[in-house]
């Protein structure tokens, strides 16, 4: 796939970001209304990373995502109905209600799963990359992770392995400034996590993660490189988590002024203004996209709410293929 982005694709990318924002906002509301059990982690403010990276991928490429993974699943083509149903614990959800927000996967779309363990995706993506190499296909595997995960041992094991075996992997660090309550500036030995790539002899690229086209371009280059068999890249998208670590997080580790400052650096507003300048988006089109997305999300909620709860005994199913 070429790195240059067509007009049609630009509009599609904008719509993807609007969908992610809409989904996350809705999920927050459903959670607050007590309709989603457990706890959820929202990616509001980080939409450009998911949309930009996944737009450089094919359907048969793989992604491994994180506890903050709704956006990645949507950008890879995930079904909103099955997602909302899963969040609400229904039988019709992606995982029949066994996974919830942190464990959504769609193997038909190459989504190898969100993960409840920070840094849990690295070893799995190594396996996907190795499998691609052994099967001699030209697929690419992407591992999304946060700044916090870059301090896990699995990150370092995976970077080294991907490098020595030249695996077709793109490591995407979404540096959103906080690992739960801990600032990246405190917990990371480097200012830019992408500089860690040097230790593993692979390219490391840091981009403005709220600039959709910058993310798209950097991801496109890295994906092309991986597809050509030239090995892995570490891409760091600098962004900001505007919601708490989880919904209900009291957020004592930062000020509202800081959050407000980042709200001005909104990836959707920024991309909308780029599109408007290029005359690819009008106020009317924007409104239409929002209405369409709202409508899809409403349908997804209605689907989930009308869906059955799983029967309790179904808790005993799906463990083994051959019990």
């Amino acid at each position, binding site marked *: 796939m070429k790195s240059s982005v067509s007009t049609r694709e630009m509009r599609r990318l904008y719509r993807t970001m609007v969908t992610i924002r809409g989904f996350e906002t809705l999920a927050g509301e459903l959670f607050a209304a007590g309709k989603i059990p457990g706890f959820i982690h929202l990616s509001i403010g980080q939409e450009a990373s998911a949309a930009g990276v996944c737009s450089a991928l094919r359907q048969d490429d793989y992604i491994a995502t994180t506890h903050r993974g709704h956006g990645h699943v949507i950008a890879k083509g995930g079904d909103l109905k099955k997602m909302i149903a899963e969040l609400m614990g229904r039988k019709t959800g992606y995982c029949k209600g066994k996974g919830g927000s942190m464990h959504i996967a769609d193997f038909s779309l190459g989504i190898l799963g969100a993960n409840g363990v920070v840094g*849990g995706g690295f070893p799995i993506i190594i396996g996907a990359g190795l499998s691609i190499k052994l099967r001699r296909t030209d697929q690419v595997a992407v591992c999304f992770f946060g700044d916090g995960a870059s301090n896990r041992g699995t990150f370092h094991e995976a970077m080294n392995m991907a490098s020595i075996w030249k695996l077709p992997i793109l490591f995407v660090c979404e540096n959103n400034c906080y690992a739960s309550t801990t600032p990246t500036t405190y917990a990371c030995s480097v200012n830019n996590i992408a500089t860690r790539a040097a230790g593993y002899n692979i390219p490391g690229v840091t981009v403005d993660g709220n600039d959709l086209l910058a993310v798209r371009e950097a991801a496109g280059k890295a994906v092309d490189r991986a597809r050509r068999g030239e090995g892995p890249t570490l891409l760091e998208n600098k962004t900001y988590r505007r919601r708490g670590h989880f919904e209900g997080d009291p957020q004592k580790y930062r000020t509202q002024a800081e959050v407000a400052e980042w709200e001005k650096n909104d990836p959707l507003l920024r991309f909308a203004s780029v599109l408007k300048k290029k005359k690819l988006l009008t106020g009317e089109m924007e409104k239409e996209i929002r209405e369409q997305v709202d409508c899809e999300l409403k349908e997804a909620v209605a689907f989930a709410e009308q869906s059955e709860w799983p029967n309790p005994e179904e808790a005993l199913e*799906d463990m083994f293929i051959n019990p």
Partner: protein
Amino acid sequence: MTERMISCSAAICEALTEEMARDEAIFIIGEDLVAHGGIFGQFRGLPERFPGRLIDSPISEACIVGAGLGAALTGMRPLVDMHFADFVTCAMDEIVNQTAKIRYMFGGQVKVPLVIWAPDGAGLSAAAHHSQSLESWFVHAPGLKVVVPSEPADVKGLLKAAIRDDDPVIFFQHKKLFAREGPVPEGEHIVPLGKAAVKRLGGNVTILTYGSGFYMSMEAANELAGMGIEAEVIDLRTLKPLDFGTIADSIKKTNRAVVVHEACLSGGFGAEVSARINSELFDYLDAPVLRVAAKDVPMPFSPRLENFVLPKAEDVIKAVRAVTYR
């Protein structure tokens, strides 16, 4: 019918050779595989026979297991070599949180045809970091099948079954048994997972065992026969799923049971077996279920210390005499 005698090592190699020739999706990943055919020589000949399908890995256990898992999710059928079973601790997240749970937590969307092969056990003065028997940890992690073979024929048959199974299997191979020989059928020989084997018939007591405990139990059973006590020895072979039917049939006949394993006592698999016997077969019992196991300390180095900690045939004899009141 001539019985061909080969070692557990040769049985492993034979199973892998046959399976790898049959299915191109099978590959082996781990440390030190190619130059020496595995750290115990267990894969000797395979790197030459199947070039590129034995993959030497850096010392990165989490990613070794993860590599197996990710490949299993994307169309391959890997066998992961843990080098020493003790090193599972460096990959526990990948084994317990990821491999065991992925199919279930994603609602059965995907199969996980992965074998985690882990050489375990003591008796080689390898001390606390290279001697453990950790099978009970994985019995406690729903989503994994747990296999612990003893005799070479079972090693071959169970390894072939484990590789062909579409669920994740952790396969413990006792290091001290690599050289142990026994009759092994040539060619297609499959021992289904989840089936125990009655390896010695007897009416006075049931000895339930697996892995190295099997040989200890057979030695004890032969001595016990001289005392007029006939022990039925059941090799469990697969701990999960557990063949409780075979256990129950035997205990209904003997009314007494002793569980024997090399792993340490507290929280060992013997506790699980004993609890199930007590809850499901209480009315058949004429004596409490006893357990024979290693003492609850890390494995010491010096042979005299190690020997003291490990269970022995004489401990099995003592337990059997206690439950038979002889």
